[in-house]
């Protein structure tokens, strides 16, 4: 059965990048030593190179050229550094997979980053703050597609047929043809990585936050809304495009008006220009 081999591949998926975990752990302590953080980052060449690239991007408002990891750690500070390290490291995960979904892994990554940016724009509008856990969940929301992509191309015709002629949503088509959808699979990967339940649930329910049985569903709904907004904007990174069912209750959940979303589109467009270096890791 295809579903069995898919679930088996979750168990053998490479560990979540140790560099990100170590940096996150060090930064938990407000008194972290810059030298300790630099030491962790500098031994991971790929992440170190990406950190330098993105800490110089307009998104992080660098006023002078950041040339060393030490400068980046000092300049970015606790909150932005953890975000930069995650962005730098998670891009490696996305670059490896998603074949069956995206025409290029670059599109796949671009979608992930754009949803992460939008999650913070909406969080600022709705909760008046940014949220690191939300950022991580948004960046990883489609991680299930990395494994799914290996199988989807075999079943692609069937899935597309269902979406096109049976008016199925992409999620339903995945479930019917493969036996599991990419959101569920992403939740299982998050479990395999020992992520906290909040992140796991936001990934697993990013198309159906209405089904989540938790008291606080804010992050799941925010990832959902950010994802849908990016799909509307055409930054979809996949063959699934807009083939998802809309959940109108999201607007009531956050007490949002259409015009709030339209304004968020404008902010996203501005931030995307500044975040070019994040998109091209």
């Amino acid at each position: 059965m295809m579903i069995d081999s898919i679930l088996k591949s979750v168990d053998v998926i490479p560990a979540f990048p140790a560099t990100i975990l170590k940096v996150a752990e060090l930064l938990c302590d407000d008194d972290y030593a810059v030298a300790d953080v630099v030491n962790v980052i500098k031994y991971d060449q790929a992440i170190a190179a990406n950190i330098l690239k993105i800490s110089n991007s307009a998104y992080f408002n660098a006023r002078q050229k950041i040339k060393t990891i030490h400068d980046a750690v000092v300049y970015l500070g606790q909150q932005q550094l953890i975000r930069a390290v995650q962005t730098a490291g998670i891009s490696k995960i996305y670059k490896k997979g998603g074949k069956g979904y995206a025409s290029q892994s670059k599109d796949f990554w671009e979608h992930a980053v754009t949803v992460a940016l939008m999650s913070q724009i909406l969080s600022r509008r709705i909760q008046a703050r940014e949220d690191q856990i939300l950022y991580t969940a948004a960046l990883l929301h489609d991680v299930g597609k990395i494994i799914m992509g290996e199988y989807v191309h075999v079943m692609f015709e069937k899935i597309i047929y269902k979406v096109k002629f049976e008016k199925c949503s992409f999620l339903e088509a995945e479930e019917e043809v493969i036996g599991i959808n990419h959101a569920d699979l992403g939740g299982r990967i998050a479990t395999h990585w020992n992520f906290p339940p909040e992140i796991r649930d936001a990934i697993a329910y990013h198309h159906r936050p209405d089904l989540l049985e938790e008291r606080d569903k804010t992050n799941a709904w925010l990832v959902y809304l950010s994802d849908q907004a990016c799909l509307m904007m055409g930054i979809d990174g996949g063959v699934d495009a807009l083939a998802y069912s809309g959940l109108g209750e999201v607007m009531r959940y956050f007490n949002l008006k259409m015009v709030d979303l339209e304004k968020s589109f404008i902010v996203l467009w501005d931030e995307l220009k500044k975040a070019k270096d994040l998109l091209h890791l």
Partner: protein
Amino acid sequence: MSELIVGISDLKVSNNPTDILITYALGSCIAVAVFDPKSRVGGLLHFMLPDSSLDINKARENPAMFADTGITLLFKSCYAIGAEKKRMIVKVAGGASILDDTNFFRIGQKNITAMRKIFWRNNVLIDGEDTGDNFNRTVRLDLSNGRCFLKSSNGTIKEL
């Protein structure tokens, strides 16, 4: 031959018959492709939102973001390099929505309505249209002959 890529909230015009104007991945955004067969002037707009009243400063900085300011700028930019309104052929694509999108996230429908109103008010007929539905589209305007092709994320390719 050069391919000029039109981004989101962007427009390009040209009177070079070897140019091809392309815009990728239209979701709820709309592409307006115009061509004057006599002067061989063509233009392509990819607007994102229906109305510039949402953010007037933004509209000043980047008119191509909105239907009203974008379509006006598209036509004016074409006139500036030799096009004439009465000869212009107009084709539009995009404005897609999420499935079962009844009363939430109606940016696609709002964009379609806003665009039609503008053309109606200005006595411009739409010569080819593929809007709505729930797939993404890529639009390609070939300035050697004015032909406009549409590729959908569900796999179909057709001429508008």
